[in-house]
């Protein structure tokens, strides 16, 4: 099933050279646009984002910046208990308070929902049970925030407390009462999902190994902390229409769930997604506030807004799962991997969220960039009485990648092989399939390793820096979109519509979610490239389910690849019409008509041309009103046929390598990361400034998880079980400018055969190696292996002490 490096149909990747002309000298134009890569006019250049000025002047209107006439303010009452039965709720005193217009409880919306259709286990507000401290039980709408808060204190809830599970191992071992009713008789209601898959002969692989490295690893949970708190506004109108504005990454899925849970005709429900102030996976499923503003507006006939407090953002969570991992990795004496075996217990929190997918991802996404002859994984996701975990940047694969890349470092150490060289030796190649039968096409991983090795001056530093200073390397891969939507259907995963105006202006109707990654700019660059329209003549209307085609959302690093291809599809339909109309006027062939720089010109005859506006008018006269749609769906031959084979499949993979340089103070255990060199194969950088921004932001977030962040909860003997340890941005420390290391981006372009102009993802892949690269650098610095996150001073200090000789070897 697995074959290594079966050929080099995809040309070698290249390191992007700085300078404005780098993108025009493209020797490897093998992408779907091989005919145009030699002369790209817009794509590949550093450009402004189309919303940069609005964001830089305070004019961009985020959800909480919207005020509607007569708007009420909503608040949600939350459970003080981690696990309890709701015996009774009395809202009469709250309803009687002057200024209160509506109160809802779980009984008003008694339908379960969930982002994954197979695991709907949440109510908009709890009906019979609360499952974590912070679970919503009632909501109010009042004339202002103060009145809404006062009303919450007048709601009487009688609880019957149940034993709380805070540890996933205890939850798995328990025989009830379970956090959820088992989905089948005899099942354990504290388990979301168990996945066990094996590929190749694992036992035989270990038997034939010269070295088997075993290790236990713990990845602490972390959360997204976007600077914008979640916010939603509901507006129910007398004609039966419902509009919900929300800071969401998934307007389409929210649209579906609102209609289903509120029992409304989806054609009457509209979701509008204003610019989102950061998300990172933390806004990629429906939340209680969206259902509550909708229901409260339907009840009161007035617009209702709910804005989470920062504390509520911490409790809503859906962030990185804590993972307890055990890895066995076998190798021959020359460093070639023979077999990999993992056993993982995941702490899922109170609800399933994306957990079914997370459980698969914890194993499925590890099988590149290295060739694995045999691989087995066993992963279990447990429910616990804490806020639900979900997808955070690098969903499900950041934790295993940490453990696995430390294992590789240990193999390199034991065999006395340079760790970069070890990774090169095991390179899986391009145009191949992984051991679990995922298709891999373009692969610039070797170039990534070369780039970080060179830029970091690895050869001069590795094992050569003085005690307390060290360098470490790690590699990774990530998907460029999931091959299937979360609900099964054969419709496109991305759609777009273009409309051309007689003024020469092009309007783009895009269903995608702008969350800061630059998707609205990305489609603008593509339309400019294809039609020759100046950027300033392009408008984008995005994220409005009444007016824009479906795009599944800003998750799984899918948008550039999928929406980009849809946009090329639409733009080329218009281009063909314009070329045909102009060619007719000039008495030439359509392919002789070039659209560029705001002009239509005849190939090879610079004297013949007309402004693009006139060309558009000719096309409109010939074909009628000018517009086109475009869509993208994934190829279906990219995965195997075993149960679960589709989860983790992707049309393309990005590849990354990091080198981190650290200084460790052995007296205090304090780790300072001096610099991270980030090399990332993004296929083609459509705008290198934005790609670098994704790379640096990813490495920053990985660094933060390595050294600082912990989403942790108190135990009963610390006061109240399940209470968040530090739900503020002061106490849950995220890195300030003074904490963050220097970050250097090295873009590698492998030109993917199916990506738009060869592009792949850049938003999540570059996070992965930060954490193991730092762990491996700490080992190079002071000789200790850090197997538990975060690498806080007490942990590092204790590890150095345990090494006895201060780690000097």
């Amino acid at each position, binding site marked *: 099933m697995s074959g290594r490096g079966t050929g080099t149909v995809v040309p070698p990747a290249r390191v992007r050279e700085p300078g404005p002309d780098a993108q025009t000298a493209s020797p490897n134009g093998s992408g779907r646009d091989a005919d145009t890569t030699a002369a790209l006019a817009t794509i590949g250049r550093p450009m402004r984002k189309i919303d940069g000025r609005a964001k*830089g002047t305070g004019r961009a209107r985020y959800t909480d910046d919207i005020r509607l006439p007569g708007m009420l303010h909503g608040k949600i009452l939350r459970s003080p208990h981690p696990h309890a039965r709701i015996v009774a709720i009395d809202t009469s005193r709250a309803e009687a308070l002057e200024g209160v217009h509506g109160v809802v409880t779980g009984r008003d919306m008694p339908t379960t929902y969930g982002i994954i259709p197979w695991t709907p286990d949440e109510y908009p507000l709890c009906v019979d049970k609360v499952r974590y401290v912070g679970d919503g039980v009632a909501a109010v709408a009042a004339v202002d925030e*103060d009145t809404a808060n006062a009303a919450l204190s007048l709601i009487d809830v009688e609880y019957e407390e149940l034993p709380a599970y805070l540890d996933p191992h205890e939850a798995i071992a328990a025989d009830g009462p379970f956090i959820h009713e088992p989905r089948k008789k005899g099942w354990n209601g504290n388990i979301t999902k168990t996945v066990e898959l094996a590929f190749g002969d694992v036992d035989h692989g270990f038997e034939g190994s010269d070295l088997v490295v075993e290790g236990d690893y713990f990845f602490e949970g972390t959360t997204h902390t976007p600077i914008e708190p979640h916010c939603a506004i509901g507006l129910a109108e007398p004609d039966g229409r419902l509009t919900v504005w929300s800071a969401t990454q998934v307007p389409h899925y929210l649209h579906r769930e609102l209609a289903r849970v509120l029992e409304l005709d989806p054609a009457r429900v509209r979701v509008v997604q204003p610019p989102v102030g950061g998300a990172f996976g933390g806004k990629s499923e429906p939340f209680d506030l969206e259902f509550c503003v909708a229901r409260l507006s339907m009840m009161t006939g007035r617009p209702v807004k709910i804005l989470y407090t920062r504390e509520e953002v911490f409790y809503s969570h859906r962030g990185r799962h804590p993972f307890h991992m055990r890895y066995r990795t076998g190798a021959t004496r020359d460093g070639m991997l023979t077999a990999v075996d993992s056993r993982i217990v995941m702490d899922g929190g109170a609800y399933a969220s994306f957990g079914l997918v997370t459980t698969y991802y914890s194993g499925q996404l590890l099988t590149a960039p290295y060739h694995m002859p045999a691989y087995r994984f066993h992963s279990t996701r447990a429910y616990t009485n804490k806020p639900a975990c979900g997808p955070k940047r690098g969903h499900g694969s950041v934790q295993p990648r940490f453990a696995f890349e430390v294992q590789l470092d240990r193999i390199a150490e034991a065999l006395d092989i340079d760790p970069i060289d070890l990774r090169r030796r095991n390179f899986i190649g391009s145009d191949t399939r992984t051991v679990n039968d995922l298709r891999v096409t373009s692969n610039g991983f070797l170039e990534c390793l070369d780039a970080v090795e060179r830029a970091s001056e690895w050869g001069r530093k590795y094992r050569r820096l003085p005690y307390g200073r060290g360098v470490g390397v790690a590699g990774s891969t990530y998907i460029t979109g999931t091959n299937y939507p979360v609900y099964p259907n054969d419709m496109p995963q991305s759609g777009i519509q273009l409309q051309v105006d007689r003024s020469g202006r092009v309007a783009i109707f895009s269903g995608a979610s702008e969350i800061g990654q630059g998707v609205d700019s990305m489609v603008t660059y593509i339309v400019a490239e294809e039609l020759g329209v100046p950027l300033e003549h392009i408008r984008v209307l995005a994220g409005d389910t009444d007016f824009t085609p479906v795009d599944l959302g800003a998750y799984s690093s899918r948008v550039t690849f999928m929406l980009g291809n849809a946009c090329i599809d639409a733009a080329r339909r218009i281009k063909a019409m314009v070329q045909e109309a102009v060619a007719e006027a000039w008495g030439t062939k359509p392919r002789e008509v070039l659209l560029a720089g705001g002009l239509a010109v005849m190939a090879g005859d610079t004297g013949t041309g007309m402004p693009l506006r006139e060309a558009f008018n000719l096309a409109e006269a010939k074909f009628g009103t000018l517009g086109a749609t475009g869509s993208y769906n994934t190829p279906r031959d990219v995965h195997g046929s075993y149960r679960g084979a589709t989860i983790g499949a992707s049309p393309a993979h990005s590849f990354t390598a990091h080198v981190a340089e650290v200084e460790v103070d052995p007296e205090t255990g304090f780790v300072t990361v001096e610099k991270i060199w980030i090399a990332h194969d993004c296929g083609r950088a459509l705008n290198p*400034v934005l790609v670098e921004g994704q790379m640096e*932001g990813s490495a920053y977030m990985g660094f933060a998880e390595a050294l600082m962040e912990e989403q942790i909860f108190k135990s009963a003997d610390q006061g109240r079980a399940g209470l968040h340890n530090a739900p503020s941005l002061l106490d849950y420390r995220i890195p300030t400018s003074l904490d963050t290391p220097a970050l250097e981006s090295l873009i590698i372009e492998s030109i993917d055969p199916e990506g738009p102009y060869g592009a792949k993802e850049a938003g999540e892949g570059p996070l992965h190696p930060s954490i193991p690269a730092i762990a491996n650098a700490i080992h190079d610095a002071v000789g200790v292996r850090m197997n538990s996150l975060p690498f806080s001073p007490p942990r590092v200090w204790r590890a150095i002490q345990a090494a006895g000789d201060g780690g000097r070897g």
Partner: protein
Amino acid sequence: MEVVRLRVNGDERACGVPAHYTLLETLRYGLGLTGSKQGCDKGDCGACTVIVDGRAVLSCITPVWEAEGREVRTVEGLATATELHPVQDEFDLNGAAQCGFCTPGILCSSVALLDRNPSPTRGEIRAALAGNLCRCTGYEKIYDAVEAAAERLGDR
């Protein structure tokens, strides 16, 4: 409700607000100046940063009455009628704003820095922005933008 009088972005404004209102609430809900953002409501994130009498101030923990009689400058007041402030323009050119939610506060901190220190070192920029959390960029492009703006201002 009480009436507070403020000088904001050069305009004299009067506004009826509850007595407990902060400067941020007054700007956003009283005056409709929604450029300044609320990220934490307790002075931890810096998204609410505005400039009061030339100094960067956390407006979410500033009682509005403390701003009476002072010169308040928000992100809406950094550009002229026809021209962006060089810091705003360089943020755009350098990709220093991704989601943009921390951007108004970081712009105000940066302008306050450059007004008192026209040619800061990278270390001084890092220190001046330490009260503004950005979750998207890793800060590198923000430093690049502030440095480029300082150069442009120096050339004037």
